[in-house]
């Protein structure tokens, strides 16, 4: 028909009753939100290079998906891409940043560290085992670090979720996180329980063994 019907999906969707206009507005608003995500520049470690920089730079060009306007201030951003490890000292800051962002806000956790603690899952006394311990996460992008293409896929997934997601009529309603990398028959709850068990195990110190090692260190000769 015209520009409106071709480019704004569902804008003129005929529905019976007064709800028709509201539904159509939901779809238009969600379509706009999905295509104009403003990410917060939040990079703590290695993933920042791949996810924040390489993805935004010349070859991978995040601008193709309307998400290149990276803002340093959380008050101007609506997408938090967690790029890197979150440790105990940083966790309250991450929470503050997320709370400062205006709603609706979305979170993508990139990399093993932000998903589960990654290489620092075992024996680390500072790493938070997954950023979702601190703030709710919408999309998980696995990798160590993920390739820029992986982030683009994560972004497209988020856009899909937003288009199908929260409505203006029910603002509190949020879709469940996408768990693309989880094997069949395994739930997020099981993964969390397993991680908690591992953390408990590595936090326990065998004092007798530690004393033996200390004694042998004292007698070790300097080479």
């Amino acid at each position, binding site marked *: 028909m015209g520009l409106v019907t071709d480019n704004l999906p569902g804008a003129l969707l005929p529905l019976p009753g007064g709800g028709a206009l509201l539904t159509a507005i939901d779809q238009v608003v969600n379509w706009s939100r999905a295509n104009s995500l403003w990410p917060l520049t939040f990079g703590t470690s290695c993933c920042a290079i791949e996810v924040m920089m390489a993805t935004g730079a010349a070859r991978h060009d995040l601008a193709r998906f309307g998400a290149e306007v990276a803002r340093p201030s959380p008050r101007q951003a609506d997408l938090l891409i967690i790029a890197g490890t979150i440790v105990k000292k940083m966790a309250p800051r991450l929470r503050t940043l997320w709370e400062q962002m205006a709603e609706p806000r979305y979170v993508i956790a990139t990399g093993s560290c932000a998903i589960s603690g990654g290489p620092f899952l075992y*024996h680390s006394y500072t790493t938070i085992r997954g950023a979702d311990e601190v703030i709710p996460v919408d999309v998980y992008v696995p990798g160590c670090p993920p390739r820029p293409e992986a982030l683009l896929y994560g972004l497209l997934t988020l856009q899909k979720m937003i288009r199908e997601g929260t409505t203006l009529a029910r603002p509190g309603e949020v879709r469940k996180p996408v768990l693309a990398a989880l094997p069949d028959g395994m739930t997020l709850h099981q993964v969390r329980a397993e991680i908690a068990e591992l953390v408990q195990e590595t936090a326990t110190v065998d004092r007798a063994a530690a004393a033996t*090692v200390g004694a*042998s260190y004292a007698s070790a000769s300097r080479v």
Partner: protein
Amino acid sequence: MNATVATTLRARLDALPSQSLLGTQEYFVNMGPQHPSTHGVLRLVLKLDGETVHQVIPVLGYIHRGIEKICEHSNYRQLVHLTDRMDYLSALANNWAATMVVEKAAAMETNSRIEAIRTLVTELQRIHSHQLWWGVFGMDLGAFTPFFYGFRDREILTDVFERTIGGRLTMNYIQPGGVMHDIHPELVADVKAFLAVFKPRLDEYEALLSENVIVQERLRGVGVLTAQDAVALGATGPVLRASGVAHDLRKAEPYGLYGQVAFDVPVGSRGDCWDRYAVRMQEMRQSIRIVEQLLDNIPEGKHFLVKPAAKIKVKPGVWYSHLETARGVLGAMLVSTGGEAPYRVHFRTPNFNNLWAVTTTATGGRVADLVAILSSLDLVIPDIDR
């Protein structure tokens, strides 16, 4: 106004020293941990008077992951992959530092092919790292074009690494006993193609940024680090060399094949931001020289001398070895009580020492200069916190 109140106010104002009426006040501003110019989660507490910086207090630990502690629970082969995540822009040099100390401790041997491959890829990554620094440095000074140009050319080199190593950033390539995979048959041709593209572009970079008057004005005489201060702080790498101290472990204590290749150590004279910039630009050209000498002379032989599943055991003792990454001297210390896992591992990382240069050089300058100084130090924050 009520006459009594006005009189009281007048009396109070008269009682104040005249300077404090017109003078300014010192105040504190937090820069970071979430800040685009600190390149990570470094937090600087700034004591300012207007735009003038009176004191810089770095606060660390926002990305302390306990890598050294995790190394105590890893065996000698496993701990190498953790070093990737310290200075991720020099991942191969970090791998090599850990490998070097393990090989020294376990008395493992290498051959000339392994050493040649290690030298070649590490030198390529020095270019890789400096390219990123150049782009980000331009961005911090307010120019966005260098960021795109730097990454455009960096991606070509990333492809070269990906073909041989498999990784784009965290490599885990250099292992005790050799290198993980033999080099890709096309590596030499790929690198030559890259150099053919990159060498003219390096001149273009110089024309674009180095010869820019605004850049020169912002960098010359800003953030001067004297040679004495640099040595006292333990600064290394381009930061130390820009201050006029020609210290480079590749020359001072040659490892790998650095003893057999010809290259110069670029040195600055004043130790300002411009010198640090110029030294890194020259280092890229020197790295190209080293790579060109090595490319056609990679000896034949095995790329891995021990069985991949073989357990490495180390007798009790203490070992230390160090090498030159793109940012300075990376030292690795190993304490063993025997067995398959170390008792204690410590890394002396270059960024930790280089960071403190900001506390002396930025004092008395402007906040905008502080950003230029921080960027000229080329800090990687997870390398500071480990």
